[in-house]
């Protein structure tokens, strides 16, 4: 895909009044600029195993948005407060190839915002309860050894809807992740660190059925849309990101944009997100399955 880079518009999409008007009108008429309806996604494609060194990785493209997620597992010590749980951290990086404005520290703000939103949507509370990833499955020896998962996301090219794409990429990467089986040497006393033997042949698959997908509803004018392009995002008044799991339960929610929303609209959005997420999960599952099949051949 080819992107014309506008050198001096400094990142933000510059749109003329006429174009803005056209985009808003399209959303009001339920016919967006590329012919989509308000609740239609762009084409999603998933590729897994893109980073050979990582335990699991995936690249997700939604239209012109292109993100990579990689998962690295390291043996570490569980924290004192939760001795029976592993640790997961999410870190997002915005590459300056995505937008010239991300160069240097320009992308940090957005990266931090995305990291926090993803942590809220995927990791649950401080205690780790209610997380999409089952943290207790990461424990090797209680109180002594656990797996630390480092989830890194990279925004390669940005055309709106980054959060959903990153959420999908992390989900796909988790499906792709194999954690080495660990043999704990028997007969160590309680207070010393047990010796472990990490297998490089046997891998355990994750249970990813609980990992939610994120659906961002962007409000433009009176209506809200899914999968906004960056042009459409520039017209938004506010955006609500809702992460929904397979059962249709809400796992997390974040809101961007300053304009206030009526609570009834938010409830409306939630029911729409539930509906949309069911389709998205199915779509993603089939994409991930075919990507995994492709990788094996």
């Amino acid at each position, binding site marked *: *895909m*080819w*992107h*014309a880079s*506008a*050198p*001096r*518009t400094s990142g933000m999409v*510059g*749109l*003329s*009044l*006429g*174009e803005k*008007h*056209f*985009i*808003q*009108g*399209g959303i*009001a*008429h339920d*016919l*967006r*600029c*590329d*012919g*989509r*309806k308000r609740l*239609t996604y762009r*084409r999603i*494609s998933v590729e897994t195993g893109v980073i050979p060194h990582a335990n699991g990785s995936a690249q997700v*493209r939604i239209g012109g948005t292109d993100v990579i997620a990689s998962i690295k597992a390291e043996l570490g010590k569980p924290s004192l407060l939760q001795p029976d749980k592993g640790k997961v951290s999410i870190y997002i990086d915005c590459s300056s190839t995505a937008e010239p404005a991300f160069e240097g520290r320009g992308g940090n703000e957005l990266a931090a915002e995305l990291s926090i939103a993803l942590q809220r949507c995927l990791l649950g509370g401080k205690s780790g309860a209610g997380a999409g990833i089952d943290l207790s499955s990461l424990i090797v020896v209680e109180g002594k050894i656990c797996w630390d998962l480092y989830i890194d996301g990279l925004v390669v090219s940005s055309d709106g809807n980054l959060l959903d794409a990153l959420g999908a990429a992390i989900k796909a990467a988790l499906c792709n992740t194999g954690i080495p089986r660990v043999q704990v040497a028997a007969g160590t006393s309680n207070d010393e660190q047990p010796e472990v033997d990490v297998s490089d042949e046997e891998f355990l698959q994750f249970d990813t059925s609980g990992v939610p997908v994120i659906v961002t509803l962007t409000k433009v*004018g*009176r209506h809200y849309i899914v999968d906004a392009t960056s042009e459409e995002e520039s017209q938004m008044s506010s955006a609500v990101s809702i992460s929904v799991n397979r059962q249709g339960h809400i796992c997390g929610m974040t809101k961007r944009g300053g304009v206030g929303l009526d609570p009834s609209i938010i409830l409306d959005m939630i029911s729409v997100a539930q509906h949309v997420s069911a389709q998205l999960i199915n779509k993603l599952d089939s994409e991930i399955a075919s990507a995994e099949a492709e990788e094996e051949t």
Partner: protein
Amino acid sequence: MRGIQLPLSQTQKVRLQKALEKLESISSKVNSAASVIIADSIPVNHEDGVLKGHGTIDLNGEVVATICGVVERVNKLVYVRALRSRYKPEVGDIVIGRVVEVAQKRWRLDINFNQDAVLMLSSMNMPDGVQRRRTALDELNMRCIFEENDVVCAEVRGFQHDGLHLQARSRKYGKLNRGQLLKVPPYLVKRQKQHFHHLEEFGIDLILGCNGFIWVGEHIEAKDDMVEDQVSQSDPQVLLPNKNCLSLEEQEKNYTILETRKYICRAANAVRVLSMLGFNITLEIIKGIIDLSISMNLDIHEMLGSDFCVLVAEKEVERRSSNKKKR
């Protein structure tokens, strides 16, 4: 597969490959000798003397290409015209640009060239259509004509000492409203007799900028502005851009009607399909794709799907081979 990014099923892949191969066999015989890739040596006659131009390097007495492209020769000069590059302006080209800056007596426009183009206040027709010297008042009111980020259509006037100049000395040039701007690789838009198109059956305007910016929008009649604009001219206040003063309801009444919007999106998606496949973009082909999609009763969004793309590629093979037979 020319780096086309499409999720294709196996049969689609075979079909697309076949279509592309056919296209290659139709076209490539003529100038395959002239195209080079990096590190190809370019045959030159050293006795006449050679001037090495852009994209060439002297390596052990041989002229070697440093970019992929087509070898061009002008007298002694040998250079390589890159296949993929930014737009290279030529005098008389019709381009579409976005205003980057409003400066003294001029606008700076991004036209996908490696520098911004300049449109002087003096090289465009005033909205009132009167030929006169531009006064200081005109200069102050420049933002009423074009603001930052406005999409403007103009013609390339030529290189002056301070860069590339544009002009807009006709009513067909000027600000573009009510539509969408698409960006495609500039090499897909070839220079033609006509770049402004009014698709009457759909009620839309299509402007193919030589710089790869393509405008698809609602048709606007090139109006006889002498009558109504003089009213607004009498009162400079009216000229001021009146944004944000309309309420949401009023705005919604002004939106492009759905019927026209459907055709705009259809035409825009036709351009997107062509750009994805890397085919030349002309009015004839765009019309063909629009008609094809309508006859198939396809949803506008489905035009971007891989199935339709493969179909377009096959249609293009048919079209080109039939064109060839006619010749």
